[in-house]
């Protein structure tokens, strides 16, 4: 019997896991953005002293885990699992970091939804009694993503207005079965939804249907309403995807406009930093959540947050073969009061 199951897609934890600490590392451009004061480490050079951007991203992820563990007053050896993923082929960034850290490792791929995927599974592991401490961490890097998914950096092409800017950043959260901090009470796992968007330069529109489906299912399963939250925040839908999600959720009978934000629109000043539709990447919701949102929650400026990281499940192969872009979104309820 699934006693902790609520409705179709949601689980409710008996002993809500605590996020006892978080840490973030971001690149120089993110460090110039409006949230710069909330990040722990801001790199001055996105190569981070490494030979390649892929290695730099992996180092970013690794160091962020170390900082988070330190802030939690724990040791790396206290971590029983590391749930982690990134955007690189075969999860180079996460698995190379896990090699160096020596923590038992589950590699996850949910494209840019990986942050809430790892928080969801992490919370389930802890509530299920399979672990006391674990770390959920994701990363992305503009330069490594750009060369894998798009064009060489020095190519003189124009980015369409719908294009988003991959965030160089990593965010790590330490989950524990006891301790002080905001708790994860509910998890709504998303379905893969595809409404036929093919344009890889318009990922917001590709992911918006998945986001709105997960948000709607979350409300239906839990009985919560938009008023139950101080903040409902999606991962990286950008300007276009955010607007679509708002409208699609409204069509289902929920008006989230008042409390709804998108990490992709928070991390950059789109006009001044010329990022077009906003930020994207696993590192986007990871750094905004582990940086800004978590700190706001510690200061009690935010008390109940629904975090929905959103992923576009395309590959370079599927895009070249002219396939549509499936989207996914997972929602996690994080609260100060139980």
């Amino acid at each position, binding site marked *: 019997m699934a006693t902790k199951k609520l409705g179709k897609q949601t689980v409710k934890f008996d002993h809500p896991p605590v996020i006892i600490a978080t840490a973030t590392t971001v690149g120089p*451009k993110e460090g110039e953005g409006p949230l710069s004061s909330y990040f722990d480490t801001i790199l001055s050079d*996105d*190569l981070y002293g490494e030979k390649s*951007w892929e290695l730099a991203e992996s180092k970013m992820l690794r160091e962020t885990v170390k900082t988070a563990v330190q802030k939690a007053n724990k040791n790396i050896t206290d971590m029983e699992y590391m749930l982690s993923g990134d955007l690189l082929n075969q999860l180079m960034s996460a698995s190379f970091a896990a090699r160096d850290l020596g923590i038992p490792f589950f590699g996850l791929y949910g494209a840019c939804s990986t942050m809430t995927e790892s928080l969801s599974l992490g919370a389930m592991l802890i509530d299920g009694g399979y672990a006391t401490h674990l770390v959920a961490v994701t990363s992305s890097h*503009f*330069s490594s993503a*750009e060369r894998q998914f798009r064009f*060489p*950096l*020095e190519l003189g*092409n*124009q980015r369409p207005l719908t294009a988003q800017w991959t965030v160089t950043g990593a965010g790590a959260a330490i989950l524990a079965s006891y301790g002080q901090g905001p708790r994860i009470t509910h998890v709504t796992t998303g379905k893969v939804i595809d409404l036929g968007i093919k*344009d890889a330069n318009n990922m917001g529109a590709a992911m918006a249907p998945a986001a709105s489906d997960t948000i709607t299912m979350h409300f239906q399963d839990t009985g919560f309403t938009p008023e139950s939250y101080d903040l409902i925040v999606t991962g990286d839908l950008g300007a276009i995807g955010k607007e679509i999600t708002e409208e699609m959720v409204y069509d289902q009978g929920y008006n989230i406009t008042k409390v709804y934000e998108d990490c992709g629109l928070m991390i950059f000043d789109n006009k001044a930093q010329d990022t077009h539709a906003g930020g994207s990447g696993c590192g986007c919701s990871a750094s905004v959540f582990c940086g800004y949102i978590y700190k706001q929650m510690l200061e009690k400026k935010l008390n109940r947050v629904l975090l929905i990281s959103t992923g576009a499940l395309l590959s370079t192969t599927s895009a070249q073969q002219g396939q549509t872009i499936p989207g996914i979104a997972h929602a996690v309820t994080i609260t100060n009061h139980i």
Partner: protein
Amino acid sequence: MDYIRAFVVGGLICVIGQLLMDGTKLTPAHVLVLFVTAGVILTALGIYEPIAEFGGAGATVPLPGFGYALAKGAIKATKAKGVLGAFTGGVQATAGGVAAAILFGYLMSVIFTPKTKK
């Protein structure tokens, strides 16, 4: 006068490219392939020659000009050498530019490393 004509013709060809990129789903790579092939075909049909005579570098520097050089070379060599010329003419006429691109491309990538975008 030559310069003004080159400016206008070259500028217009680029505007066509821009409109194709902005107005359709074509990527820059598609536009380049389209332009080279269009240059070849238009030259074969005798349409590009007058444009090139009028516009000078304005018509030869953009990519359709590359197609123009290819087709012109192929036709010229076919006239002189027959079937073999059809195979060698185009490549021969553009060999300088392509070889330069390979050599300089290699050298630049040895000397420089790409910088991240701001």
